[in-house]
C-alpha cells in the first residue's frame, strides 16, 4: 500500500486522538486550577457570564463594532467556518442524504464556495490587521489610538494552515463538484464506520485537503486556535484570587 494511502488511513484517527487528548488535558488543567467560583459548575458559569445572552453576543461579535477590521474579519471568518463545519458534518452524517448528489453538489457550490471565499477574506483581513496595525477611535473618549497585536510566531503557521485548508476546499468544490462531494462523503462515512477507505480520497487535492484538515484538527487544542474552547469556559470577574 502506498505511503500516502497509509497516511490517509491513519491520519484521521491520529488527529481525533490528539484532539481528544489535548482537550482533556486542557479541560483538566482549567478545572484543577482553583478559583472561588468559575465554570467548573456550568450553570454558575452561565450566571456569572451573563447567561445565554453573553454567549449569543459573543457569537455575534457585537462588542467589536468599534474596530471595523476586527469585527468584519471575525464575523466573516467565524460565521463562514461554522457554516462550513455544518456542511462537513452533513457529509459524514448524511442529514441531506434524501437529496440527489446533483442537488447536494449544487448546494455545495452555491453555499460552499461563497462561504469558503468569505472565510478566506475574513482571515486575510485579520492577518492584515495583525501585521499592519492601524488607528481607531476609542469609544471611551473619541481619541484616536494605535491598535497593535502581539502576534507570536506560532500564530502565522496556524493561519497559513487554515488558509490552505479553505483554499483546497474551494478548489475541490469548483473543479470537481459532485464527484468531490461523493468521494468526500464516502471517505467521511468510511472513517466514521471505522472502515477507512483510502481509495475514496484518490481525487487530486482531496487527499491534500484531508491531510490538512487532520493537521488542523490535531493542532486545535495545542496552539492559539484553542480559543474556540473558551466557549466551555467563562472567566469569573468576581474572582479575587486562587
Amino acid at each position, binding site marked *: 500500500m502506498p505511503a500516502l494511502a497509509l497516511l490517509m488511513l491513519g491520519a484521521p484517527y491520529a488527529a481525533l486522538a490528539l484532539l481528544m487528548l489535548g482537550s482533556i488535558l486542557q479541560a483538566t488543567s482549567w478545572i484543577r486550577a482553583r478559583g472561588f467560583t468559575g465554570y467548573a459548575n456550568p450553570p454558575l458559569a452561565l450566571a456569572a457570564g451573563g447567561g445565554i445572552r453573553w454567549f449569543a453576543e459573543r457569537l455575534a*461579535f457585537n462588542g467589536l463594532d468599534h474596530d471595523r477590521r476586527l469585527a468584519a474579519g471575525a464575523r466573516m471568518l467565524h460565521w463562514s467556518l461554522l457554516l462550513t463545519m455544518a456542511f462537513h458534518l452533513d457529509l459524514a452524517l448524511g442529514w441531506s442524504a434524501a437529496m440527489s448528489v446533483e442537488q447536494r453538489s449544487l448546494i455545495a457550490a452555491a453555499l460552499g464556495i461563497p462561504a469558503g471565499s468569505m472565510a478566506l477574506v475574513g482571515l486575510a483581513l485579520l492577518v492584515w490587521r495583525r501585521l499592519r496595525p492601524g488607528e481607531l477611535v476609542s469609544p471611551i473618549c473619541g481619541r484616536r*489610538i494605535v491598535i*497593535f497585536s502581539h502576534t507570536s510566531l506560532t500564530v502565522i503557521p496556524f493561519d497559513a494552515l487554515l488558509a490552505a485548508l479553505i483554499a483546497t476546499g474551494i478548489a475541490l468544490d469548483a473543479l470537481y463538484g459532485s464527484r468531490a462531494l461523493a468521494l468526500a462523503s464516502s471517505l467521511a462515512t468510511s472513517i466514521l464506520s471505522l472502515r477507512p477507505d483510502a481509495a475514496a480520497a484518490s481525487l487530486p487535492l482531496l487527499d491534500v485537503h484531508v491531510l490538512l484538515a487532520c493537521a488542523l484538527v490535531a493542532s486545535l487544542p495545542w496552539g492559539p486556535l484553542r480559543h474556540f474552547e473558551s466557549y466551555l469556559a467563562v*472567566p469569573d470577574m*468576581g*474572582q*479575587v484570587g486562587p
Partner: protein
Amino acid sequence: MSSPRAAPKKAGPGLTSSVRSLAGLMGAERSARDAMREAYRRDRNVRLALDLCTGCGACLAWCPAYVSTGDQLNSPLGRISAARSLLRGIISPDDAYRASWLCLTCGACSSACPFGLDVPGVSRAIRAALLESGSAPEFVSNRVVEQAAASGGSGFGAEPLRALVRGIAAEIFEEKGLAVDPKVDERAEALLLVPSDDLVLNVDTLKGYMAVLGRLGVDFAFSHRALAENYGLFLHPAIMRRLADGVASAAEELGVKYVIVGECGHAWRVATGYLSSRLKESGIGIMHIFHIVSAALRRNELELHADANGDLVYEYRDPCQYSRGGGLVEEPREILRRAVRNYIEPSLSGTRTVCCGAGGGNLAPELLPLTLEHARLWYDAALRDGADAVVWPRATCKAHVSRALRALNPGSGRNVGPHGAGLPRAWTMRWTPPSSQGWPGMTLINRRTAG
C-alpha cells in the same frame, strides 16, 4: 502626556519585609518566575487568560491606561505579554513591575474581551509573584501595613472611634432631630464596615450611614478592628484573605447577623469574592449599604428631598469594582434618582464604565500626573454629557476625583463638583418601622463557594 516610564515608587527592604511577613512569606525569596508558574497552575482565571488570549487587541480601545498613555506595556496586551514572558523568565523585573502595577484593575478590558478574560487577575498574579521575589510599591505596602495594624487592634483605637461616632450622632440629632445610638465593639445585629477615609475625610458619608441606619431602626455596631478597605486585593491574595478574615472574626465576636459594607469599591469586591463565603460559614450575611437604602426607598420607609440637592445636573459614574465583578449597578441609581432633581445617565455606564483613574493601588502621590491623564477621559465625557456633578460613591474614587477636579476644572472653565455619597443629604419625612422579621426585600450577597 505623562512620562511613559512612570511607575510607583518601590518600598524599601524593611517595609517589603513587613509586607512579605503579612503574606506569610517568611522563608527565602522565591523567584518571580516560580511564583508566577504556581499562579498559572492554581488560579483558574490566570490560566484561562494566558491560555486563551489571542492578542487580537479588542481590549485596547477600552483600557483607560492605554488610551491615555499609548504605552504598550501599560495595556492589557502588555500585561498578558509580561505574564507570559515572566513564565518563560525573559522579562526584566522592572517591566513586569510597571506592566502590573500601572494596571488600574478596572476590568474594562475584560468587558471588551471576546472571551471575557480576567486581565486584572493576571496583573494581580504578577504583583503577587513580584512580592514573593521581594518587590512591592511603597504606597500600597504602607496601606497594607496600616490595615493589618487596624485589624490587629492597634490602628484606630476603640475610644477615639467611640468619641467620633458619638460626635457624629450629636450632629445628626442637631440637624435632623433624630437620636442615633451607635455602638462600638458591642454586640449588635449588624456590623457596619466603613473605609477609614469615611472616619477621617468623608465624615458626611459616615453621617449618612448612621442617620439612615438609625432611622430604619437597625441595631448596628462599629468594630475598631474592622475597617472596610483591603489593599491585600491589590498586592497578594494571602494578605487579602488575612485582612478579610480579621473582619470575619470581628463580626463573629460581636455576634452579628449581617455585615453592612459602606462606600468602598475594593472592600465590596472582596466582600463578594471572598468574605461572603467566609462569613457564610458562621451564618452571617453581607450586603452593601445601597441595598438597605434602596430597599427602604422601595418600601417607602425613607423619603428623600431632592430639592435639598439643588438644580445641579448629577451624573452617576459606576465605580469599576461595583459594576464589574461586584454586581452593584441598579441600587445606587435608584437612590440617586430619588435624591436629586436632575439626574442623567453617563454615556458609558454599568460594565462599560470608565475608571476614575487611580484604581488598583494607583492613588500613590508620585503617580498623580499619570492618574490625572487617566481622569481626563471621564472628565471630558462628563462635560460632554452635560453634568454639573459627578457622583462616585467609592472611597478611592472620591479621593482621586476631588483632586482631579481641582486640577481639571480651571482648564475647562467649568466647575464640575464631586459628590461621593449616594446617600443624600436630605432624607426622610415618611417613616415606617422596619418589620420585626428583619429587612424584607433586601439583597443578601452570599457568594457561591468554590467550584
